[in-house]
């Protein structure tokens, strides 16, 4: 009952023109960037972030959520029609979508993908509504030591998600935490690492860093890469079939597998949709009903992958809203909108600003409906966007990065920061060093420092509060387990081999 009350309050909170327009623009932009080759939601959200400052918080969040969700849908279009995934998470859709399209069933493949993504999106939004409140109730029991350990655990999870790049991810996370300390220390008013530069007194702002790392670095790569060639003969076949829309419901098992993995993995920091789609795909392959081999146009492959792909969004928002811990770069930037408006994500948000929580839930539901409606109306012309030369897009993104960074504070200083981080992003890409942990570190750094100081201040420098308290102790144990697990599993394997 409480859930339906929250939902109706959420829909009421969305009932303004500003939010409706933001939602519509966000959804449309999201679909477009999902289709455009090389442009991801991260770039778009980073550039749009400054423009959300002047909006009501829910309008800004709805705009960015629209881009976030729309890109999941849009990515399937190029995967199916030109065998080029718009997003990394759409790779699995390509395996069966493209062969299906090649067999003259492009409309069936697109309809299957869109409806499965729609079911995934709606289910994950409902899950957010059902799970967020109990999880926030649990998180409300968190004191400073628990918050410290939750962030440390999230940081280690981020590192682990990069597998072999664990050390470089932790290095960038450390740098991100460090960058968050630059400026005037809020506790003692001492100037930290400002080098006498007045602009650094208020710290290194998140907006130009995000614009540089995601927008500029991506644009510089796009303008300097050769124009990709692809077989575009199937683009003219783009369209939808009503029978295809109903087909995913023939495969409830594949759908359930996708939903479960997408939502569960969405909650984990930095793991991302790409892993959930591949796991769901291979899981669906084990007990497929349709006799078509996987990789040759099996509809269950598309259903599982797209359900998992789009059900990530709700899961990712759960950790942002309940714990204030972003799972990936996009939710980190979305969290920036909360922070700019003085809204602190976490359990207290459910008590202090329930309209925001309910609004996010309702907005996720409405966004999925709007996106599906937009796709039904525009899929044919939309598919033609795949023809756009990435160099033209790269140039346009560079021009938008300038205005995006500048308008955050009407200052050229912000553009200089964006340019510096743009170069850093490009260099890191060449050196195979991940940059997302840097942004996550910057976003979580302030909270980590404040809660760490609080804990140690109360215990007079003792680390016992981290072990004395049960929740914190569990988090410490989980973090340690994550560290030692590769060694333990390696030892087990060694023991197994001789037998």
């Amino acid at each position, binding site marked *: 009952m409480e859930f339906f009350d929250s939902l109706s309050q959420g829909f009421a909170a969305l009932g303004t023109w500003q939010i409706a327009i933001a939602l519509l623009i966000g959804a449309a932009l999201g679909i477009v960037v999902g289709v455009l080759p090389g442009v991801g939601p991260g770039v778009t959200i980073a550039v749009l972030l400054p423009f959300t400052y002047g909006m009501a918080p829910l309008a800004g969040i709805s705009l960015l959520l629209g881009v976030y969700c729309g890109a999941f849908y849009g990515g399937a279009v190029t995967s199916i029609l030109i065998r080029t995934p718009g997003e990394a998470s759409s790779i699995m859709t390509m395996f069966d979508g493209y062969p299906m399209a090649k067999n003259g069933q492009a409309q069936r493949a697109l309809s299957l993908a869109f409806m499965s993504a729609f079911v995934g999106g709606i289910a994950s939004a409902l899950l957010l509504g059902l799970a967020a409140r109990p999880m926030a109730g649990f998180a409300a029991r968190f004191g400073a030591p628990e918050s410290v350990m939750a962030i440390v655990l999230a940081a280690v999870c981020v590192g682990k998600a990069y597998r072999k790049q664990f050390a470089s991810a932790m290095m960038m996370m450390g740098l991100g935490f460090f960058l968050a300390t630059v400026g005037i220390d809020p506790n003692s008013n001492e100037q930290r690492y400002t080098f006498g530069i007045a602009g650094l007194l208020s710290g290194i702002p998140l907006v130009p860093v995000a614009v540089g790392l995601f927008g500029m670095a*991506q644009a510089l790569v796009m303008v300097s*890469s050769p124009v990709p060639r692809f077989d575009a003969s199937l683009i003219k076949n783009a369209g939808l079939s009503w029978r295809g829309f109903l087909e995913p419901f023939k495969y409830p098992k594949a759908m359930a597998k996708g939903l479960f993995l997408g939502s569960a993995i969405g909650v984990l920091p930095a793991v991302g949709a790409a892993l959930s789609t591949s796991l769901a795909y291979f899981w669906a392959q084990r007990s497929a009903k349709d006799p078509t081999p996987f990789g040759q146009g099996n509809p269950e492959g598309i259903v599982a992958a797209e359900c998992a792909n789009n059900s990530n969004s709700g899961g990712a928002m759960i950790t942002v809203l309940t714990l204030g811990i972003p799972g990936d770069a996009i939710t980190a930037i979305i969290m920036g909108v909360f922070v700019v408006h003085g809204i602190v994500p976490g359990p207290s948000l459910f008590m202090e600003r329930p309209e925001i929580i309910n609004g996010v839930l309702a907005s996720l539901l409405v966004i999925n409906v709007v996106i599906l409606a937009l796709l039904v109306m525009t899929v044919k012309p939309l598919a033609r966007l795949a023809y756009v030369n990435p160099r033209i897009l790269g140039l346009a993104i560079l*021009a938008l990065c300038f205005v995006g960074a500048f308008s955050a504070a009407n200052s050229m200083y912000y553009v200089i920061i964006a340019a510096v981080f743009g170069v850093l992003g490009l260099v890191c890409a060449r050196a195979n060093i991940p940059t997302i942990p840097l942004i996550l570190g910057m976003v979580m750094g302030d909270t980590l420092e404040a809660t760490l100081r609080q804990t140690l201040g109360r215990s007079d420098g003792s680390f016992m509060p981290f072990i004395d308290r049960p929740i914190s102790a569990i988090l410490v144990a989980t973090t340690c387990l994550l560290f030692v697990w590769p060694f333990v599993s390696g030892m087990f394997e060694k023991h197994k081999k001789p037998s």
Partner: protein
Amino acid sequence: MKKALEASPWLWSWDKGLVLLVSVAAAAVILETPQLITPYPAEAAWFESAAFFPRVTLVLACIAGLFELYRRRSAVVLADSEELDSSTANMRQALGMLALFGLYMLAVPWMGYLSSTWLFLLVSGAWLGLSRRATLSLSVSLSLGMWLVFVKVLKVYFGHGWLI
């Protein structure tokens, strides 16, 4: 497209240099912290000091960097990141584009937003080898569109240039 670089154990490469530079810079900042925090809280307890958390984060960056350097010592390293595939990017072209962007940054307050954006897009398009038609239509439509949206509608103030 991913390029794999076979890095032999003692062969030095610029990416290893970059990781080493980050580690060394982090270590240097840890040591120089008393000079970089003003006024330095020498009397404060270690856990209350403004230097405590930054030092912890720098230690993390430094040690993780050294581990990464060790891992890259003899590992097969991918030439591009999983996040952003730059394996086919022409670095000279990217740096040239960056230089043009720098000139654009200087031109905006001096010339005005509309004219400098148009010029930036026009020159960049020509430099990237886009067709004359694409360059002209992109530069005119995008600069005009952005000027209308950002300057006229959203009232972003770019300074007072001698042109628009």
